[in-house]
């Protein structure tokens, strides 16, 4: 049954998200061909255009990312809690199977979104000019970033693998945050969508506070003071070490929050939620 | 075409009457096989269980008899069919006379009207 649910959930997400990400990659190609690929940043004007095109591109990426999670949220809400829910809830499948299917399909597309985002950034940024600069100064750049000491033998595939795991867990946690919000919103009878939005901001705020506290406790806050303090203690600031720490901690936190919200959503779906 | 049924009398009684009517009118002959409950129910646009009840009642009266697997048949007892015919006629006549009385016709006048009507027809 899970397989069948997953088939239809994926189909439904594919319809919108394939188009969305095709657009993302096409605009990346467009920017590469018409802007970044032609610019060598050897004068201020071109540097500015380059900067602006990156800015534009960041907007496109943000929109694609936002759009992806909107589509995932709409699918969950519409399929389970709009009129369509009357069919979905009377299929011979458990509520747990519905939640799992939605979580898997949402996580798959959330991850794909990040992979395609990475790919498109690569398309935009990795112009021959940039690559030449990179290869010419590879050693310096790596040192500057902090690929030294225990991070010196970090190979590219290893970094990618880590980023992939990070993406999957983040996608999972983002999806389940949305689902938990929708389900919590169902408790506000009469204002179910508003309830979902409020729940989303409430959960996000709590999670942000939690992550800020844990980062601060572990001395990984982005606050300059903390960085200076550590530098002052004789330990040079290392970007890779810092990122590894932040990402590692975020991943762990996202995983814990995700699991807690998954259980909460599961329990609410099974015991509380009435269809409108 | 659904059968024309009244709203205020039990449906199964009306179904019985209708089938009796059909038998007397020669839609079904003595010894004929009756359509299945489902087909009759569909034709009449009524619940199959109600049709079943009507047929069972007719069976109890002896007008129908069922052969275990092959279905229901009209009785071959000609006497009984004749009796049914005259019973139905008698009940129609009674009903008619009752109505004429309500209109204020004495029996002789009713008879006269009937005779005139029959003559007029031919």
């Amino acid at each position, binding site marked *: *049954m899970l397989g069948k649910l997953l088939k239809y959930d994926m189909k439904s997400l594919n319809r919108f998200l394939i188009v969305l990400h095709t657009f993302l990659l096409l605009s990346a190609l467009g920017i590469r061909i018409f802007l970044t690929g032609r610019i060598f940043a050897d004068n201020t004007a071109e540097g500015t255009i380059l900067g602006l095109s990156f800015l534009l591109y960041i907007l496109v990426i943000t929109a694609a990312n936002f759009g992806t999670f909107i589509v995932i949220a709409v699918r969950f809400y519409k399929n389970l809690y709009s009129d369509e829910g009357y069919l979905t809830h009377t299929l*011979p499948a458990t509520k747990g199977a519905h939640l799992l299917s939605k979580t898997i399909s949402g996580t798959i597309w959330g991850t794909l979104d990040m992979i395609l985002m990475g790919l498109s950034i690569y398309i935009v940024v990795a112009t021959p000019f940039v690559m030449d600069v990179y290869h010419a100064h590879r050693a310096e750049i790596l040192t500057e970033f902090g690929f030294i000491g225990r991070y010196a033998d970090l190979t590219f595939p290893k970094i990618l693998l880590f980023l992939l795991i990070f993406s999957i867990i983040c996608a999972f946690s983002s999806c389940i945050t949305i689902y938990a919000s929708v389900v919590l919103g169902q408790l506000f009878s009469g204002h179910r969508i508003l309830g979902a939005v409020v729940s989303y901001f409430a959960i996000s705020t709590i999670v942000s506070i939690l992550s800020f506290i844990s980062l601060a406790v572990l001395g990984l806050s982005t606050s300059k003071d903390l960085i200076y303090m550590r530098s002052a203690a004789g330990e040079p600031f290392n970007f890779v070490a810092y990122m590894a720490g932040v990402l590692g901690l975020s991943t762990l936190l996202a995983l814990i929050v995700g699991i807690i919200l998954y259980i909460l959503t599961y329990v609410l779906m099974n015991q509380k939620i009435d269809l409108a | 075409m659904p059968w024309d049924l009244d709203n205020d009398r039990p*449906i199964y009684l009306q179904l019985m009457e209708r089938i009796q009517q059909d038998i007397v009118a020669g839609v079904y002959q003595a010894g004929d096989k009756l359509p299945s409950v489902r087909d009759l129910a*569909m034709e009449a*646009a009524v*619940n*199959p*269980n*109600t049709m079943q009840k009507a047929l069972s009642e007719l069976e109890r009266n002896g007008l129908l008899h069922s052969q275990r697997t092959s279905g229901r048949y009209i009785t071959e007892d000609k006497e009984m069919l004749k009796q049914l015919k005259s019973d139905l006629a008698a009940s129609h006549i009674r009903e008619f006379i009752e109505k004429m009385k309500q209109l204020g016709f004495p029996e002789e006048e009713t008879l006269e009207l009937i005779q005139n009507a029959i003559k007029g027809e031919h």
Partner: protein
Amino acid sequence: MKPILECQGLSKRYSSSFYALNNLNLALEKGQIVGLLGPNGSGKTTLIKLINDCLHPTQGTILIDGMEPGVATKKLISYLPERTCLDLSMKVKDVIAYYADFYENFVTERAYQMLQDLEINPNARLKSLSKGTKEKVQLILIMSRDAKLYILDEPIGGVDPAARDYILHTILNNYNEEATILLSTHLIQDIENILDRVVFIRQGQVVLNQTVDEIRTQHGKSVDSLFREVFRC
């Protein structure tokens, strides 16, 4: 014989003071066509949603063929909700495939036969169909299952009289001795002849549960007239 549907002390409270169902008791035997009748807001739809596991009861139990609502009972029940519950971006043939995929007792050929009878194009998108045609498609899907319990919430509300006849015909045609049909409607007169039994509900409780012919024998009037009398405003 084990009833196909049994509700005991069933209550559903929506807000702190409003009970949509209030200690309702009802048992239905197999092999009947049952009309669930009651004025607006009497609790018909709430009862139907509870049976279909779309609501959680506040109190009481529901047993379908001896089982509490869940995956097993959803295999037995073919449910037509009061509103269109289909993904309107799908084509008619896609929804048929969807039903066939999820319900083992779905008979695809029967669905296509009915589409043909009602002259509905399987390649049409649901979005492009009229309200009445959408209702017909949904009814076709529901009646194409070999279910044990059909629950139809207002099945003939929005369709034209010719289609209504076809629908009643379809219900009769697909009906078998093992199946039970529970249908709620306001249009009593149209369906009175196909019902075995009627259940009147008012303010969340069963006020009458009799066969149509019992009502006619006992009260000397149609279910429709009795309904008007019982629920006179």
